[in-house]
């Protein structure tokens, strides 16, 4: 028995220690940093003050007060939420036909079709974003064709790169597989007999979809929505590369706080709020998914 305990510690100990040091402790440092004063030259002010009679530990809620009283930053959160929401809707619309087609393909082809959805996802993230710099760029033949087309409708040519629209397109592109996979996993399990029954009872194709397939797929929709929404909300590289100044999101500003203006306590506050919102959203999604399964 004694050696069994020893084995357990020998095997689980090293990874546990590593993750405590390089994940748990840094996270706690960030939590504490969000309650500290910024240093005079960036970074952090000393945590322990030498002033006689003072409490000895300099902690403040000023950073949080600054966040919640500033329309700039709360507005930025609202904007990021909105972008993430549009992205989720865009992913759902694009992913549903794909997932449905894969689920209704012959069994032998399904694995290949799923693999084809995942494959681009394994190529470098930056490359997938960069591709849209080419496609949406000012010299792009695609933008040229697009502007020619809307010109026929009497509209002024538009710029696409470095706009919120470019950010949302990039977000949808990068997160699409996260929506396809849970949707497919759900749709694949549907009993085709249900659709036959609905047809026998006189339901048209559209009715069969909206009253049988779609309600049954809701757990997959919620799971996919959570997998898209949460990372899209906190993303930094996509608005940074495709967004320009008008397309900034919360992740872009966290980066600015840490690397450009070097206000680490405030950057930590933004990160904390981002974490809390992300965890809360994950909990809501889990709750919805469980409820819809009952």
């Amino acid at each position, binding site marked *: 028995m004694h050696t069994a305990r020893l084995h357990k510690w020998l095997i689980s100990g090293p*990874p546990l220690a590593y993750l405590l040091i390089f994940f*748990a402790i*840094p996270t706690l440092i960030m939590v504490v940093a969000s309650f500290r004063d910024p240093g005079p030259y960036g970074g952090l002010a000393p945590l322990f003050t030498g002033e006689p009679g003072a409490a000895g530990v300099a902690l403040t809620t000023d950073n949080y007060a600054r966040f919640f009283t500033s329309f700039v930053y709360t507005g930025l959160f609202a904007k990021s939420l909105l972008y993430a929401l549009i992205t989720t809707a865009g992913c759902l619309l694009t992913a549903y036909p794909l997932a449905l087609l894969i689920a209704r393909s012959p069994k032998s082809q399904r694995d290949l079709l799923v693999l084809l959805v995942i494959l681009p996802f394994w190529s*470098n993230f930056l490359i997938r974003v960069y591709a849209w710099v080419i496609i949406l760029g000012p010299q792009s033949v695609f933008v040229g064709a697009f502007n020619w087309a809307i010109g026929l409708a009497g509209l002024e040519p538009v710029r696409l790169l470095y706009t919120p629209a470019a950010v949302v397109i990039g977000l949808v592109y990068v997160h699409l597989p996260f929506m396809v996979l849970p949707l497919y996993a759900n749709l694949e399990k549907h009993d085709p007999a249900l659709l036959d029954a609905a047809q026998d009872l006189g339901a048209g194709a559209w009715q069969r979809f909206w009253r049988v397939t779609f309600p049954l797929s809701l757990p997959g929709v919620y799971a996919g929505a959570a997998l898209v929404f949460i990372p899209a909300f906190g993303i930094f590289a996509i608005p940074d590369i495709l967004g320009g100044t008008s397309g900034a999101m919360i992740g872009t500003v*966290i980066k600015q706080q840490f690397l450009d203006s070097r206000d680490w306590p405030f950057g930590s506050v933004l990160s904390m709020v981002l974490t809390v919102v992300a965890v809360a959203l994950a909990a809501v999604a889990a709750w919805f998914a469980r409820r819809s399964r009952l």
Partner: protein
Amino acid sequence: MKRSAWLAAAAVAGYVFLYAPLAIVVAYSFNDSTMNAQWVGFTLDWYRKLFRNQDMLVAARNSLVIGLTASAVATALGTMAGYAMYRWRLRLLPLLVLAPIAIPEILMGVSLLLFFVMINLTLGMLSITLAHVAFCIGFVAIVVRARLAGLDESLVEAARDLGATPWQAFRLVTLPLIMPGVVAGALMAFTLSIDDFVITFFTAGPDSRTLPLAIYTMVKITVTPEVNAVSTLLMLLTLVLILVASRLSPGAMRGR
């Protein structure tokens, strides 16, 4: 019938949406023009230029060194974590293994930046490697754990009955059986490390540029078709790694 044709068309459009951007990057890497616009003619100049670009070569070497080191350490620790999670009912370890995968990447980047500065570790190759190990452990652990779930426990018991010590039973029976999972996990860790941008961005110093950081600078400052060439090569590398990994452990590459 009409509906299924409509569905197929929408799904084909979905696949085009997924692949066209990557195809465009590959195509322009062979275009004989400094602009990513009109097709002028076929050239390999951008690849030649790339192989003479000293910054890029240094960045590629850094990425390789970090990727090999980080994936080796993460594979060892991740295999231990995966085995521990399979063998015993643990509370803290599964949480610490899964949390880095679940939270937004940027949080891990900034908290590690704070941590490294606090312990006075100069940002560079070491800090990047330590950070990469931290986020790779979880992925290795999940793959190894999944492989262990399919293990026939009676084989280990038989070895023990025949007088093997627990260590011998692990090394001679369990480890060879889960080896495909371990190798797949290692390849996954290597791919994730080579590809990582966000966490590297926050934990890198001025003299430790990796390939994604070099690409980022090129994309942000000067977009030349060299980016297309390096992107194409990276895609090719990833594709080869996936093919090897999926040969070794079918099903392990699902989901991520």
